[in-house]
């Protein structure tokens, strides 16, 4: 297991591609699938990363796997083509929906934890997997609100989806923390019930509190509590890769490096900086 572990990685973004290129120990990165052309030039800086042997996983954000409507075939085709271009060992997407009846929400929205919603996700993942030649990992999102008609606990809901789709789990520790905090629950409780052996890799991100709610912003520093959760997770079952996800308000390079080092320290993987 330790041999094929990637260790600490980072979400590749064009804004910080120069920083990512300068990480000597990097072996794992993730790129937003929709920002990569299926056939045209790869984004500036990404080819050099691939040449170095860094594994780059496409991360879809607009497939809308949790939508009641079937996934749009051209989006699935694009995701599959990008995975092939990057030579990625897997792809990832969210358990969420981003549009309904032709209207874009502009963001990942939660779905009800109901049988009907599970059926929708399972059908959409099946449609997606038919075109993919690599496995897919599903990421539960952070939601500021819940649906009123949740039938299942989050753990049961996720486990059933994973069982029925045979997908891997992309566990976002910051999402687990955010949801637990906003619902007044204990994040460790959810960790204890999830199939940790199916975790393909882990997201770690920062957030901030506004008016009593914790927002998973990806534009703030990673809080200590999230790093503690990383340490706890790795003590129970260390996933093969953990990556920092930052989407804006990028801090000075020193701070980004410190965050990567903190994730390395919490997980026990070597520092990549």
């Amino acid at each position, binding site marked *: 297991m330790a041999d094929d572990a990637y260790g600490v990685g980072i979400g590749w973004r064009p804004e910080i591609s120069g920083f990512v290129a300068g990480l000597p120990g990097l072996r794992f990165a993730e790129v937003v699938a929709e920002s990569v052309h299926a056939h045209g030039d790869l984004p500036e800086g990404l080819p050099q990363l691939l040449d170095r042997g860094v594994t780059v996983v496409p991360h879809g954000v607009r497939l809308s796997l949790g939508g009641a409507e079937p996934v749009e075939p051209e989006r699935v085709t694009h995701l599959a083509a990008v995975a092939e271009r990057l030579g990625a060992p897997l792809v990832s997407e969210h358990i969420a929906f981003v549009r309904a009846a032709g209207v874009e929400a502009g963001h990942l929205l939660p779905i009800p934890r109901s049988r009907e919603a599970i059926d929708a996700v399972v059908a959409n993942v099946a449609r997606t997997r038919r075109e993919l030649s690599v496995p897919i990992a599903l990421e539960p999102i952070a939601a500021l609100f819940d649906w009123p008609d949740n039938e299942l606990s989050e753990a049961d809901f996720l486990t059933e989806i994973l069982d029925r789709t045979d997908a891997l789990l992309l566990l976002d520790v910051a999402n687990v923390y955010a949801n637990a905090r906003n619902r007044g629950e204990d994040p460790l409780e959810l960790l204890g019930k999830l199939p940790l052996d199916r975790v393909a890799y882990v997201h770690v991100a920062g957030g901030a509190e506004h008016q009593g709610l914790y927002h*998973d912003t990806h534009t703030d520093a990673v809080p200590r509590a999230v790093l503690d959760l990383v340490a706890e997770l790795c003590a129970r079952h260390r996933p093969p890769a953990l990556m920092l996800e930052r*989407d804006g308000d990028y801090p000075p390079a020193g701070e980004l490096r410190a965050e990567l080092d903190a994730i390395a320290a919490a997980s026990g993987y070597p520092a990549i900086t």
Partner: protein
Amino acid sequence: MEDTWGIPGPTFLIGYVIALIAIAVIAAVNRKALFRGDRNARVDDLGPQQIAYLNGGDRLAVYSSIGGLRAAGVLGTGAGKTLVQTGPVPSGVTPLDSAIHHAAGNQARTRYLLEDQWVRAALDDLRAGLERRGLAVSRDTVKQARMWAWATGALTLIGVLRLFAGIANDKPVEFLFILIGVAVLTTIVLARTKRVATTAAITGLRQLRVQHGYLAPQQSPAYATYGAAGAAMGVALFGAASLYAMDPAFAAEAEIQRIAAGGLAGGSSGTAGSCGSSSSCSGGSSCGGGGGCGGGGGCGG
């Protein structure tokens, strides 16, 4: 009817064309040699302001310094579009940085920086150093290159004299007229020769631009992450558009001119271009890019 000046029209025209071509070819060869610079000169160890000078002359060197000072948080804008200091000058800066920071202390406007005596002195030093290294073309060399305009100018004069003589002689002058036009254009081009970087430097700059492609404004570089040196280098390699990408309000207030640099299209920051043309942006919404899954929102992935 006698030939004008005793030379038949076709013979004169052929001779005129040959002379024009000969001068153009010799001038081109000579200019190439003049502008070649030191082939072994390196650009890797140059600072951003030196690179900026090679890429866009005095003005871009000033802009690169402004970019670095702004990223370091010590430069801002005040009333009347003047520059102001917002902090003490950082340690280890270049003489040009110090001069601009000092000028900002006197509420200088960006466009008058080139007339400031300290800024001027710093730029002259910077240029002289680059000339010694065979990277910058000296003003004398440019003057030398412009000398060829005298040759084509003389040819133009001969043509004009022949034109008048020919008209007086009632000869057809249409072809001559066209050739004179060509000679005039060539003269203008030669007389207006401008050159900052040697061929050696331009080759080096091209490599630097590839190497630092992540600083191109189309990438919306995270200047905070790359620091003051990265900001200055971005401006140096990719022009004033980098200043607008970094801090649009400041750049507009400081009256930064969107001059072209390094063959970039004049002025456009091209941010729209990175999106609209892409076929992979299925659905047309948001087109990948900055999206990500968190971003200010409460429902991150």
